[in-house]
């Protein structure tokens, strides 16, 4: 007994039975009333659920015995039951009081072995076969509508009328061995349709997933937060509707309320949703019988919502009935109250309707507004009792209270204008044949797409603001020239020729009134409010690289190869954005998270986009996410749980991989993992991302992240995912707020460099100014006077536009320069962690001295304080202070 007491989670449940206490005829399901107070117009109503709950207790032993005898001596069936239970328990929304439980699963399995269940399960089947058959039965069987009877055909005691009565009274009917009890009397229609959906999804997994879907079916938690597109939490404790409910009815009062909420939301959200699931776990998990009912219903009611097509769920207007249809119109008015208004539509129709006016970037919140309105109107809820998880993370994507994505239209327009002008240029030796966007802002996946800059227009006719940003982010654009045989073959000369071409193009654009600023490496064109950085892609460059690559394999990818990857990637992701509208926001949240935790220098933007794309293309065991919070949660979970060491991540956007491609990818992957046996810590690339344009994962993750960095990212992701799950289901508590997801603890670094926030290129993108870390302050510095991120614009600007423009710094980022100089000065001493989007802290971790070569011993001999003083000196004018938290380990 002591041993058992030490096992956590081991319970002994005592279930009382009452085999022969009551008279069966008095418990007839469809006619008898046994709750006297339950009346309608003074007449007692039948109480089928109440009767059934008593019958259940009476026949429990008989049923248990029968089930037990079927399972005895049938090992595969037992194993299949275990599998099914694991499967169901991973899915919180179907393993609940109104859907499946372990007992019900075993009863259904028994049914499938009988002739009345078609004997679909027989003794020659393997465990996996039984599992599949059972899932298939959940998903597709027509038998559910006829009612299941767990009695062999010959011994059937329940009449056809009896079954018909059961089906009429209950949503789902599973008649037990005795023929008196409906085992599934608690199951509701909505729960059952979710079960069917879940099972259908599982069948899909079985066919499509690696390793027969093992991970997806049995290892992945399908909980509310990750499954549904948005979750709504309603605190009903002390609500007048609840206290008014009577205990003296057929069903439990909490179930009645579940149904009310369900139908209210269904009516309010109409075809905006695919599925609404309402669950109120009213029984506390640890309940002392002495407490009575007071604790019941104190935990909040949870609603999960699955959105339908986003065009539908984001629509601004709900059209109701025509006012001439009086009854309907009155009903509509009654439901919507003051929100209903009579409207005349473009096609001339007049109808009652509700309008949810919102900015484009806020349209995802319409669902929330409707649900909040309907529930608070009809359930008399206070605002603080309703928490709808929809826009809680938006804070990290806003600039000045607005999502900069709203200016994307102007950006694309500007690009089109430029592309057209480029193609029409006739004073350049070779014509420009194609113009392609490369920057993530063009594909809606940039955290902060640049907003139009007042000085980047051809003419400054628009009213100028008082201030403008000094730094302009330039957006890369790739152009291709028409073919020519006169290109030099030598790689260096080729690059120079490209620069020459770009300068020529720049000159002729300048003649057309645009502002061009160029260095030898980049030519920037400022037009229509934006800055574009032009790059030339030369196909021959790919071939030249190949030849050079033979002799010296470790060479960095050539400019052209990189451009090729980026253009392919860009068009691929753009296509994906067209299919899944939630993709953009999910990637933006993911990117912001990556950089907020200072991983910017280790994982490329494109890699994040691909990982997020995988969520949408292979969402199993879920459906592709339709909301940003759910997508982001799944991103974090994927990042933390994906088995990078043993599996390649195959991102197949257009479904164009066949068996042969997959084999090729797998072979490439195996090749990259060959060194694993010798040295499990050093595998390259640690993150294997295969796409149709890059089957050997060379494009984005070849150099970085390393295995150790990836491990760090994964553990951050795990911690964030847990916090996010908690926030969705239980809400904020104490210090654990939504902001914590994006606030990184600086104590995880060996040293921290704080920067002057007002000397960053875009101070308004900083989410949280860094707190001063613990540890020893080594050096501090004053801000530079030479750089200001904003410049004043006066009236004279209009006259001397060109001079003012010369003050602009295009693609200038002090932090990037600082990091470059640091890497130059200390190539192997430490790793640098930074936030490329907007962070005023840089983390620093010492590299173990083993990694450093012998010749670096001199550098290693320096004490950390003097190294860090040097670090501060390299960034003078930008560095605010340097703090030492941990000295490097000495050998």
């Amino acid at each position, binding site marked *: 007994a002591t041993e058992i007491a030490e096992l956590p989670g081991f319970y002994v449940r005592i279930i009382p039975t009452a085999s022969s206490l009551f008279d069966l005829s008095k418990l007839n399901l469809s006619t008898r009333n046994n709750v006297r107070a339950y009346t309608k117009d003074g007449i007692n109503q039948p109480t089928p659920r109440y009767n059934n709950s008593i019958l259940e207790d009476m026949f429990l032993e008989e049923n248990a015995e029968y089930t037990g005898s079927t399972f005895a001596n049938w090992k595969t069936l037992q194993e299949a039951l275990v599998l099914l239970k694991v499967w169901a328990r991973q899915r919180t929304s179907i393993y609940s009081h109104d859907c499946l439980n372990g007992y019900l699963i075993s009863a259904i399995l028994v049914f499938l072995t009988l002739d009345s269940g078609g004997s679909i399960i027989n003794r020659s089947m393997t465990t996996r076969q039984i599992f599949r058959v059972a899932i298939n039965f959940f998903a597709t069987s027509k038998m559910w509508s006829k009612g299941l009877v767990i009695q062999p055909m010959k011994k059937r005691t329940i009449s056809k009328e009896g079954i018909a009565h059961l089906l009429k009274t209950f949503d789902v009917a599973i008649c037990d061995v005795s023929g008196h009890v409906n085992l599934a009397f608690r199951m509701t229609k909505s729960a059952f349709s979710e079960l069917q959906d879940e099972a259908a999804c599982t069948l899909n997994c079985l066919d499509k997933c690696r390793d027969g879907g093992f991970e997806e079916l049995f290892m992945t938690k399908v909980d509310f937060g990750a499954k549904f597109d948005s979750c709504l939490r309603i605190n009903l404790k002390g609500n007048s509707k609840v206290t008014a409910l009577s205990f003296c009815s057929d069903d439990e009062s909490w179930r009645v309320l579940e149904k009310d909420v369900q139908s209210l939301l269904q009516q309010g959200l109409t075809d905006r949703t695919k599925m609404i699931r309402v669950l109120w776990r009213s029984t506390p998990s640890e309940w002392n019988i002495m407490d009575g009912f007071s604790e019941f219903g104190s935990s909040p009611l949870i609603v999960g919502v699955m959105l339908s097509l986003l065009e539908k769920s984001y629509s601004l207007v709900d059209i109701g009935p025509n006012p001439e249809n009086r009854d309907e119109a009155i009903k509509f008015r009654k439901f919507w109250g003051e929100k209903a208004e009579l409207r005349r539509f473009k096609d001339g129709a007049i109808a009652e309707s509700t309008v949810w006016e919102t900015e484009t970037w806020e349209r995802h919140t319409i669902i929330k507004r409707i649900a909040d309105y309907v529930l608070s109107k009809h359930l008399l809820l206070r605002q603080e009792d309703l928490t709808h998880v929809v826009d809680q993370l938006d804070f990290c994507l806003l600039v000045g209270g607005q999502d900069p994505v709203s200016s994307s239209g102007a950006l694309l327009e500007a690009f089109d204008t430029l592309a057209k002008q480029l193609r029409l240029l006739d004073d350049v030796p070779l014509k420009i044949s194609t113009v392609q966007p490369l920057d993530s802002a063009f594909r809606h996946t940039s955290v902060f797409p640049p907003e139009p800059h007042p000085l980047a227009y051809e003419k400054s006719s628009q009213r100028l603001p008082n201030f403008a940003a000094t730094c302009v982010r330039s957006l890369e654009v790739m152009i291709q020239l028409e073919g020519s045989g006169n290109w030099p073959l030598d790689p260096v000369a080729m690059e120079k020729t490209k*620069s020459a071409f770009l300068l020529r193009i720049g000159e002729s654009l300048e003649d057309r009134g645009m502002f061009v600023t160029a260095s030898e490496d980049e030519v920037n064109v400022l037009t229509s409010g934006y800055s574009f950085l032009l790059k030339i892609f030369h196909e021959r460059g790919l071939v030249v690289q190949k030849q050079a690559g033979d002799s010296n394999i470790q060479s960095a990818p050539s400019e052209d190869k990189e451009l090729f990857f980026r253009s392919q990637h860009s068009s691929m992701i753009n296509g994906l954005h067209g299919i899944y509208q939630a993709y953009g926001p999910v990637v933006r949240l993911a990117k912001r998270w990556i950089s907020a935790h200072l991983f910017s220098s280790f994982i490329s933007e494109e890699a994040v986009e691909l990982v997020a794309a995988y969520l949408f293309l292979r969402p199993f065991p879920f459906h592709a996410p339709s909301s940003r919070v759910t997508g982001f949660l799944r991103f974090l979970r994927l990042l933390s749980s994906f088995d990078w060491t043993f599996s390649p991540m195959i991102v197949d956007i257009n479904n164009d991989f066949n068996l042969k491609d997959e084999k090729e990818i797998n072979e490439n992957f195996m090749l990259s993992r060959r060194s694993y046996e010798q040295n499990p810590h050093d595998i390259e690339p640690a993150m294997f991302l295969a796409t149709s344009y890059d089957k050997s994962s060379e494009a984005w993750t070849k150099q970085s992240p390393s295995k*150790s960095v990836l491990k760090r990212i994964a553990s951050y992701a795990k911690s964030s995912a847990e916090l996010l799950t908690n926030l969705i289901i239980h809400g904020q508590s104490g210090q654990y707020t939504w902001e914590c997801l994006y606030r990184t603890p600086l104590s995880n670094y060996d040293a921290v460099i704080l920067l002057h926030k007002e000397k960053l290129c875009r101070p308004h993108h900083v989410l949280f100014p860094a707190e001063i870390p613990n540890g020893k302050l*080594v050096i501090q510095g004053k801000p530079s006077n030479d750089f200001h991120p904003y410049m004043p614009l006066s009236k004279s600007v209009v006259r001397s536009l060109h001079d003012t423009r010369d003050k602009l*710094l295009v693609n200038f980022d002090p932090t990037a320069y600082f990091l470059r100089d640091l890497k130059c000065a200390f190539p192997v001493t430490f790793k640098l962690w930074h936030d490329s989007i907007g962070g005023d802290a840089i983390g620093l971790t010492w590299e173990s001295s083993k990694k450093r070569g012998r010749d670096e011993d001199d550098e290693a001999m320096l004490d950390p304080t003097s190294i860090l003083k040097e670090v501060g000196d390299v960034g003078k004018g930008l560095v605010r202070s340097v703090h030492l938290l941990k000295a490097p380990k000495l050998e």
Partner: protein
Amino acid sequence: IVDVHIIYAADVNQVAAESGVMDIGEPEKAKKRKKNKTKKVKQSGEVNGIDMQVSVREDNLEVHEVDTANVDEIASVDEDCSRGMKKWILEYRQKRPGLKVLQQNIDVFITAHEEQQEREKKEREAAAAEDGWTVVMHHKGRKKTTDAETGTAVGSVSLAAMQEKMAQKKPKEVGRNFYRHQKREAQMSELAMLQSKFEQDKKRIQQLRAQRKFKPY
């Protein structure tokens, strides 16, 4: 904001110095949490122990150890052109002398580059000639239209045009499943593919077993 922080830290230090106790401001709770944290790290190894939900308040409480009184300042922030912000802005400006200058630079480079290549080529030829070989010069004039070795016509049609034409031609081959041997081969190759996939899967299952990560709840 910056100043506020520094002043705050300095004030606290003054208090600390006066009372002669370094560890004053830290309430019991914060200490306790700190202890827990270190414990966690020990349990789960270096990386897994990262506790992300460190509250900000806690950080504030521990600022007290910072000693600002005798901290070095970064020297000559606005004078030194060799490092830091001043250097970066200078560098930015220097790299942008204007389109004309850049164009000239490139022209100069390309001319020099071509000259050098020419020179190298001549040197090579000269070296070859010294060894007693005659360098055969490239023919100008009529283009060769037949390949010397095979005698087939080449060059008269551009390669690209030819490929296009070839692509347009309908393949005359019979359907993939026309001959029995084709079918058989297709079957065989599919079988081989399946077999190799099976082998791979077997390997993978071994790997998964080795990991032993099956813990459903």
